[in-house]
């Protein structure tokens, strides 16, 4: 479904990704792990078509990714900047107009589930609630690819828990591909099908998590520390 072929992404002074080859299949929840600056966000943005590779190609269903792939990709940035003059409901309504695949009933369901007040202005939301809003906006789209850059970062355990449960409840694991990057491995360990480790812009390993447990009796954390030591 998604394929990276010898992808290198260079910025002026640094190489963010180096010769990455990667294949991602639909119907999986895939974790992208690595230290800060390892290239996780770059990988996400490449799939969203928000940046383009310096070398190599990124394809979605056999087609070269462009910015307008947004029709097939729901991207959640690590930043939580929204139009601050909107309320939660207005933000949801605006998203619904921009994406034909946006399911408003689902958005309402997730909003209620996440316990987020519809009439609060975005600029008055706490960080945790902005995190919840991001989840609502991302999961309400019925698209083949969901990209979530650090959905749990900086949130307290209660919010993290409700986000993880929200993922289990609202992602269609038969049809959708979820790629999420995170530091909080403990929280997502049990919901990942596959895990990809990147280090200094290089893809170190890409494993099926259950196979990893079966073959090496290792959890993701142990596996990671064996990679990063």
């Amino acid at each position, binding site marked *: 479904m998604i394929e990276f072929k010898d992808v290198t992404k260079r910025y002026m002074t640094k190489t963010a990704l180096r010769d990455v080859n990667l294949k991602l299949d639909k119907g999986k929840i895939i974790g992208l792990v690595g230290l800060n600056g390892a290239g996780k966000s770059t990988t996400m943005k490449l799939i969203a078509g928000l940046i383009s590779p310096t070398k190599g190609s990124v394809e979605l269903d056999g087609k070269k990714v462009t910015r307008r792939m947004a029709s097939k990709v729901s991207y959640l940035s690590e930043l939580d900047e929204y139009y601050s003059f909107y309320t939660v409901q207005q933000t949801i309504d605006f998203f619904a107009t921009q994406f034909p695949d946006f399911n408003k009933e689902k958005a309402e369901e997730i909003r209620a589930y996440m316990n987020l007040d519809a009439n609060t202005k975005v600029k008055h939301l706490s960080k945790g609630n902005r995190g919840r809003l991001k989840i609502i906006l991302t999961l309400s789209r019925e698209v083949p690819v969901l990209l979530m850059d650090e959905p749990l970062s900086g949130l307290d355990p209660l919010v993290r828990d409700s986000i993880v*449960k929200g993922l*289990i409840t609202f992602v269609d694991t038969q049809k959708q591909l979820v790629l999420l990057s995170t530091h909080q491995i403990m929280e997502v*360990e049990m*919901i990942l099908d596959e895990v990809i480790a990147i280090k200094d812009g290089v893809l170190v390993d890409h494993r099926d998590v*259950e196979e990893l*447990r079966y073959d090496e009796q290792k959890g993701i954390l*142990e596996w990671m520390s064996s990679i990063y030591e």
Partner: protein
Amino acid sequence: MTDTFQSSQPIYLQLADRLNRQIVSGELKPGDKLPSVREMAVSSKVNPNTVQRTYRELEASGIVESRRGQGTFVTENEDILLSIREKLKQEQIENFIQVMHDMGYQNQEITEGLQTYLEGGARHD
């Protein structure tokens, strides 16, 4: 179902194990309906794909059966239930014996110990 899984063992096997025990202990009765894949995934906080796999495994072993459009049910087949019961017992005993042997206990010590323990069981229960 609140206790967590070990991250170093395949989750689908741990979940299957857990369900097997619930069936043998009678917590889940023959003919009972199992939670849907998503319900189970949410309540045990694991990936729905994993639950799907667990259900497939259990179905293959015969202890549950899926009825089209209705869900997954605990089998009412006595033979299968008995054999699972037997199998779990064997597994536990094997584990126990393995541990005891590793620590250097002899078979006789083990049986004597077990007997004493079980006879005085009421006190320890």
